């Protein structure tokens, strides 16, 4: 499975890589911002995206909105420190399949992936 991790923080991308369950068999790609994520989604085969919300320039909301408007159905799990209920509702309205709080454990992530039928 080709997995794209989108976060402006290198540390955050490392933290997420570390908790990806081995059973996912992920071939991990990274993007350091929303624009790069959209370019990669457009030009490469991506099966699952982990998306941060708070990023400079093109943020996670804009990525989801762009994909939704383009009719591109890409399984996306939002991984964010912004845990406001309204933020969680907004990303679901924009098509995200799940919302998880930074920083999560491998067990928590495995549970989310199982719930989404991805593991």
């Amino acid at each position: 499975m080709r997995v794209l991790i989108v976060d402006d923080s290198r540390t955050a991308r490392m933290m997420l890589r570390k908790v990806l369950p081995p059973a996912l068999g992920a071939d991990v790609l990274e993007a350091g911002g929303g624009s790069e994520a959209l370019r990669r989604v457009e030009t490469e085969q991506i099966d699952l995206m982990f998306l941060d919300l708070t990023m400079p320039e093109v943020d996670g909301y804009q990525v989801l909105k762009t994909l939704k408007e383009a009719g591109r159905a890409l399984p996306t799990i939002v991984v964010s420190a912004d845990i406001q209920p309204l933020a969680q509702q907004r990303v679901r309205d924009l098509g995200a399949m799940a919302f998880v709080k930074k920083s999560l454990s491998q067990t928590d992530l495995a549970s989310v992936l199982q719930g989404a039928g991805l593991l």
Partner: protein
Amino acid sequence: MNTTILSEDKRDALQEIVNIGMGAAGAALAEVLGAFVELAVPRIDVVDRRRVPLLLDTGAWSDGEIEAVRQPFFGGIIGESLMLFDGAEPARLADLLGHAAAPTVEEQQELLLDLANVVIGACVGGIAEPLEEVVSFAPPSRLGGRPDASAFVVGDPEQGREALVINVDFKLEERRFRGRVLVFLSEPSLVRIDDAIHRFLNALAS
């Protein structure tokens, strides 16, 4: 201060740690204020303290009056935090509180101190916790307006000439009410944080 500490990777890590702490603060503020809180990406800068007042006069912060609250912290890491509010006029605070009439001076100050306490606690506490440092806070106190804040951030020469500035901006959606957090760390504390982040990154890479 030795500027070779807090390398780019360590700043990135500290920024992410602050980001996680501020996420919790944003949720707490949203609950208190009944509004969606827009959070900006935190910025980490090492600056000459004499230049810090310029941070109070940049971009969108260059116009209008501000209200400043300070809150010292101590323990494993020691420093001062400054919370700046823009849009804290009585009428706007009345709107935030859901009051028809302008709040009393005491109510205004209480609200600003409470908000500062929540945000600074999440920001500084958010830094300390993953780095396994224990921090205590003095009560927040009103500092005053822009001139008072500028005089404060120039600071005591005994605190060192350079400061680590952790800059976090937030605003309320559809309302003119913004906040900025500045955190100043003592040089020994900065060394402790540098060491702690080093360990944090090593654990992440192992």
